[in-house]
């Protein structure tokens, strides 16, 4: 037996289109891209304003997408972080409260520190104590919401430096506001982290097969901590941006954020049980959702109808998953087989 003997299984793609097709098939974002294309087409035809006023659309995408980006880091590992919206509220309140007493920089640092502390507590319960992340972060959701009310004395905290807030909402680079720029910077940072940095690349392994990841010598608990910290800090950043841009921190803010960010992640092809998905997918999901929301808002479509649309798209994103389709196909074929057999009798 020599080394030349080679077993060839499967086909190796050749040629540009062959390679292109195989690259496309490898990505998990395929369905998200198709959905995005459909929505983009529909929007172009009906509401061109979505594109002509693209900075507004980008602002909406950044609003719902930022928290989703951080959340995806946790979802990739098969965990959930329900506390993101409350983290957003509490960090906004802390940022403004501290900034009013000292200065903005210290306010921002305090809010970021709060985000880190929250994620450490979340990760401690999930990774060390072993509580299901749904439950642990649900508890955190309520606790932080309450804390936001206590710190703010149950009323929105006005940012004293209103001019700073107004300036923060103005375009910084071309028509792009700081919010949009920060959103893209964070997207690039997390994308590089999960695709280039060893720890980030291992997120998929932790989510895909935790036992195997552990057996292969990956420090699973440390990865879970890292994921929650990303999620918490990004939520805190979103809270700071919201509070500064609105010139006030509202303890009830973020009420529509939680569902929107999960929707963006799911539409982007992320699998809630982990091990499947990508940050780019979430970006595409957020873009689809943002565009759709802006278009529907311009059309004056009422909220319940908007929700039907978003729900429909979520369902499409989920049921077009090949494994769901296989399951549907399997049970259908058994049923048909049965019917055919009964008829044959």
């Amino acid at each position, binding site marked *: 037996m020599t080394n*030349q003997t080679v077993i060839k299984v499967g086909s190796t793609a050749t040629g540009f289109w062959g390679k292109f097709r195989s690259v496309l098939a490898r990505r998990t974002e395929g369905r998200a891209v198709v959905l995005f294309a459909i929505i983009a087409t529909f929007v172009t035809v009906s509401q061109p304003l979505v594109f002509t006023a693209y900075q507004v659309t980008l602002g909406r995408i950044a609003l719902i997408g930022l928290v989703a980006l951080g959340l995806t880091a946790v979802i990739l590992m098969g965990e959930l972080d329900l506390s993101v919206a409350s983290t957003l509220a509490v960090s906004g309140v802390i940022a403004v409260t501290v900034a009013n007493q000292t200065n903005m920089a210290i306010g921002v640092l305090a809010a970021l520190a709060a985000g880190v502390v929250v994620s450490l507590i979340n990760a401690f319960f999930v990774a060390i104590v072993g509580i299901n992340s749904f439950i642990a972060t649900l508890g955190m959701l309520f606790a932080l919401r309450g804390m936001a009310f206590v710190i703010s004395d149950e009323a929105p905290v006005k940012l004293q430096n209103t001019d700073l807030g107004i300036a923060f909402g103005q375009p910084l680079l071309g028509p792009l506001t700081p919010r949009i720029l920060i959103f893209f910077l964070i997207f690039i940072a997390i994308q590089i982290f999960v695709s280039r940095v*060893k720890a980030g690349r291992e997120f998929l392994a932790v989510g895909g097969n935790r036992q195997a990841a*552990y*057996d292969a010598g990956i420090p699973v608990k440390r990865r879970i901590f890292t994921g929650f910290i990303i999620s918490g800090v990004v939520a805190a950043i979103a809270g700071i941006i919201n509070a500064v841009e609105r010139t006030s921190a509202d303890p009830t803010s973020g009420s529509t954020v939680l569902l929107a960010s999960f929707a963006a992640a799911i539409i982007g092809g992320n699998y809630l049980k982990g091990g499947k998905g990508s940050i780019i997918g979430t970006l595409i999901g957020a873009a689809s959702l943002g565009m759709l929301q802006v278009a529907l808002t311009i059309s004056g479509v009422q909220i319940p109808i908007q929700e039907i649309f978003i729900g429909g798209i979520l369902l499409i994103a989920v049921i077009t998953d090949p494994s769901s389709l296989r399951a549907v196909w399997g049970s259908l074929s058994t049923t048909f087989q049965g019917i055919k*057999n009964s008829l044959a*009798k």
Partner: protein
Amino acid sequence: MTSPVIEARNIVKSFGGVRAVDDVSVSVMPGEIHAVIGENGAGKSTLMRILAGVETPDSGSVRIDGKEIENSAKASIDAGISLVHQELSLIPEMTVAENIMLGAFPTNGGWTKTKEMKKIAADTLKEIGVEVDLDERISRLSVALRQFVEIARAVARKPKVLILDEPTATLTPAETDYLLSMLQRLASQGLAIIYISHRIPEVFKICNKVTILRDGKLVTNDSIGDLTPDKVIDQMVGRELHLDLTQRRPAREFGELVLSAKGIKAPKVNGIDLEVSKGQIVGLGGLVGAGRTELLRAIIGADPRSAGRVTITSNGKKRVITGYLSAIKAGVAYVPEERRTDGLALTMTVAENIFLPNRKEVSPTGVMPKGKIAAFAKDLSEKVNLRPPEVTREAGQYSGGNQQKIVIAKWLGRKPSFIVLDEPTRGVDVGAKAEIHKLVKELADEGAAVLVISSDLPELLELSDLIHVVRDGKIAGTLTGAEATEKSVMSLAAGEKLVGA
């Protein structure tokens, strides 16, 4: 005389009173392919998990090059032990290269060096002679190719000892041949290989030494030259003389045909015909992973089948089974293998569990009078000899054997015409086991058709009127009466020709 690379000394490991590995010592030389064989549950996998540091032994030690190593996954990997798991441990959505290098990405200050990672992966694949696109995701590969990637991962660590747990279970004959020659090539380069398999022919083809385990104990540790396939099977089974033939069911006449399954195809099931008559107990023998559970679930419609027709006749009425609900209507009672997850609601009381499939029988109107439920449950629990028969206790408070009785009891209320049992006594103590055997036989005597899967050979022989041995999703042979022995079942299951009984 070279010294052994790996040496396991006096390993002992118990699970809840059962000695899974009982004082076993094994040593392997460099360049040696060492087979570890035994029946299902003989302790092979547990022993290997201990060697790989994934399981902690109660006592005993593992040495590499004469030095004792700490018991941890990391210590074993660092010492040069690579385990290729039986259940695949790849990450479906990561690429081939990433999977081969999992946990050992080459880095530069935290950044992965993708080029270097791909180069090592490519070299490893070349070394084992497998060609596959490095950027392909595992979920898009065939099961066989995944198995090779798994081996590549183990080899990429440059191990001194490579442990393979049933690597050929999912491979075609051609792929198996390729794998075996690959292992011989690796061994010729000085690697020590521990090869676990049920397949006797493979063992004789490539292995130098054979260790046989039975009930957790070491029974043989010989060079392959001193053994014959026949001898190996004898050693694996080893109970021929102890079998109590008086317990077996005498030959008898059966009633009308109850189950007729023709041309059943499903994942891991490749076209099987099966019939069970009234009063008959049909046993399904075979190795774990041969497709028995899949066959059974496809028959009763619990999982979808891709082809085949199933009918069940009860009370003179013939019904086509299209799904699990129609099977239940036709009088099927299914006692699954995983009773803790599939068969019982552990936090509900015995009465509630028994009541579940009998809602219509107990309360046709939908009203659920507690007393009536309790009385109904009490009758049935006495019939299955539940001890103590306190129907208001939570099911989870009972022992494994009693839990199994509850599962059986809950189906008896429907007076099933066809009873399907998957490993009915796994993890059950001896006393309860005998009672369950008695109960199953009684049910058949009362006119039920019974289909039972068991990996416990004496149990299979004791219960069954007829035994089908399943191998690779097909029926490898059918045995009745005197031709059914542990050895004949094992031979068929392991793929060795049926030796004259």
